[in-house]
């Protein structure tokens, strides 16, 4: 009897400990916000999935939207864009609005019929640039320098899942470098991982968008540990455009449209501009450039 009681206590103790004692501290790994609540006094919910690299502008847009729409609660979920896509596809989560850097991540959602092409809103050009560890011991001064023997590791985000990886491979291929760099390439799960490898000098070079996340989520980066070498010529990739999309399954289509409208209004554009993401003049209406 005593044994059973103690064993059960121990089991309960461990379960509670595991469940309560060691909570995740990473917003990116947190569970999604609860489903919309509809009841007396309950606020309308708008679920927005945004890449963690655009944390700063979308936090401001969230505040701005809630201020202009007092009855609405914006649930902003931040994570890597391809993780957000996987959550929608595999875990059948259904946000109202999705944002992606480069639009490549949204391709799968369009193919799955979850986003209509007309609902894709490319809004800001993204400048792909080559960056290296601050010390730049490999002596990289151009893309061609990646072929040098001193460059041992080139970190590249997964080209199948991320737009940054997709455009990196596209640019290096068009420059005639990709095949010759194969022995140096380390594919990482996401763009933030490549950044981390360069910041810690584990990789000699990588590619990132100049403004995202270098400017839009500075608190998450050790920017003092890297330096930008050059912009990748525009004719080698893209166009890379930060893209905002309304899901076809949006439970509050009206609010989602309102959010998009607000994002491309003057105050919204000012927010993006503040973080070096100037909006395209035509932003707010779908264009061919948005098509993946």
């Amino acid at each position, binding site marked *: 009897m005593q*044994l059973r009681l*103690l064993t059960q206590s*121990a089991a309960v103790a461990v379960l509670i400990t595991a469940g*309560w004692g060691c909570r995740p501290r990473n917003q990116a790994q947190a569970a999604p916000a609860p489903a919309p609540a509809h009841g007396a006094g309950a606020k309308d919910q708008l679920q927005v999935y945004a890449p963690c690299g655009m944390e700063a502008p979308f936090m401001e847009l969230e505040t701005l939207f809630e201020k202009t729409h007092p009855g609405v609660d914006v649930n902003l979920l931040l*994570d890597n864009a391809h993780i957000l896509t996987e959550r929608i596809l595999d875990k059948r989560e259904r946000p109202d609005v999705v944002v992606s850097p480069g639009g490549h991540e949204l391709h799968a959602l369009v193919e799955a019929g979850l986003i209509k092409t007309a609902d894709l809103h490319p809004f800001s050009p993204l400048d792909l640039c080559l960056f290296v560890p601050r010390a730049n011991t490999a002596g990289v001064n151009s893309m061609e320098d990646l072929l040098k023997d001193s460059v041992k590791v080139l970190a590249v985000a997964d080209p199948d899942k991320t737009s940054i990886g997709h455009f990196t491979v596209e640019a290096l291929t068009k420059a005639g470098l990709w095949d010759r760099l194969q022995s140096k390439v380390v594919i990482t*799960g996401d763009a933030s*991982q490549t950044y981390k490898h360069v910041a810690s000098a584990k990789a000699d070079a990588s590619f990132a968008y100049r403004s995202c996340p270098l400017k839009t989520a500075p608190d998450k980066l050790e*920017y*003092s540990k890297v330096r930008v*070498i050059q912009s990748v010529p525009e004719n080698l990739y893209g166009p890379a455009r930060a893209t905002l999309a309304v899901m076809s399954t949006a439970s509050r289509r009206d609010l989602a449209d309102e959010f998009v409208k607000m994002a491309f209004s003057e105050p919204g554009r000012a927010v993006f501009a503040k973080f070096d993401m100037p909006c395209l003049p035509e932003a707010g209406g779908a264009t061919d450039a948005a098509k993946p």
Partner: protein
Amino acid sequence: MRKVFCVACILGLALVLQADDSQRLVVRGTVTRSGGSRPVTDGTVELRWPGHEDAFAPVTTPIREDGSYFLEVGTDPTAVPTRELTVTAMGRACELLEKPLPATAAADGGPIQVDFAAKSSTLNGILDIFHCCILTWGILTVMLPAFLLGAAITAFVPSQAVLNLLGPQAPRWKAYGAAVGSGMVLSLCSCNVVPLFAGIWRRGAGTGPAFAFLYSGPAVNLVAIIFTCQVIGLPFGLYRTLAVAVIAVVTGVLMARLFGEARTGGAAGASLPLMSFGPSARVTGMLLALLLYLLVVGSFRTAPVWRVSLTAPAGLGLVALAVWGLGRANTVAWLKEAWHLVLLVVPVLLPAVLVIGLIALYTPLTVTRWMSGNNGVLANLGAATFGSLMYFPILTEVAFGKALLKVMGISVGPAVALILTAPGLSLPGMIIIHKEVGWTRMLTYVAIVTVLATVAGMFFGSQWGSYLCSCAF
């Protein structure tokens, strides 16, 4: 001729005036070591526009022998916003330190003073890896109650009764339950599970429960599970517990199917003598509850005032319970067990953490790139096999897994596969085990666990995505 001269003069004057439009920035200061006035004598200071180094070429100057530096540069305020410029001190054997140019820079026009107090970078690169999870004071408030909780369970839950349930006569569900749960009760590590397994094997324990016990014993160690939650994250700790239980039972069942459940010979069916010891169940339950409370509160990231307010009453209650509830003999036994656990773990863990950090820092990414961004069969199988061959002292598998995830950027699946095989299997352990059970059983057991851990790693990797350390981004 005179006209030409006049035009040249005007043009020259225009150029000079235009040059005067550009802003001359003079930056000076000193670089000293933090915590004193000793100057940094070797290194450089750099003025740059972060993120736009290709538009504004960084300007560097050496640090002089007295630690001072002097930078002078002409900038065009219309092209380079002065408020976005930064100054960085890069002293030898010092942490890199970057500061924004003071806001008054543009207005004053005079020299701008920017002084640095640079921290020494000795070992910092290594310590940085674990500064958020292991090498932090916060870990004490979690791990101290964890050690006391583990010790309380070991000291006051009669382990003989648990081990007796592994015998061939015991009902199957009880036997497997005891095999899986025993690791938590016994606080085993990968080294002391082998002799214990040999003991119960010789007494004729059932094949299935015995092998389930051999695997799960060190793998669900209570302290190790809590450590996993603390260092890598809650879902990893939870999944580890669940996966170990499933792998242990499946391994046991498969081994029993392949080699037969009941065994004869030796002291088959012999039981360990049951001893009555420890305090009453009520007192033990209260003790476990208090320790659990301290563990949970200790993991909260709250202000110190709140922590003290929440833990002080429970701490006092614990002392009162130890004095009046447990009694002197039980308290001494409990604390001795806790001390034994601490001695078992800490002297190995701390040097191991430094060694792991060192290895992670200096191992090229190309070594582990087959596990990076890859949740395939080969990546998971490779990681599981590596974990099953290497000997990992208790808890070091967690630190190793964390370093692989955080520094080497391997995928989540392979990291989980490694953590699942590392505590329960090792080459030295295999050599000892084969003497008890023979090569066939031993190799079959290792193969089953490795394959199951591979599957478990792949499953978790496919569900979780990428790993982001709480301090890393």
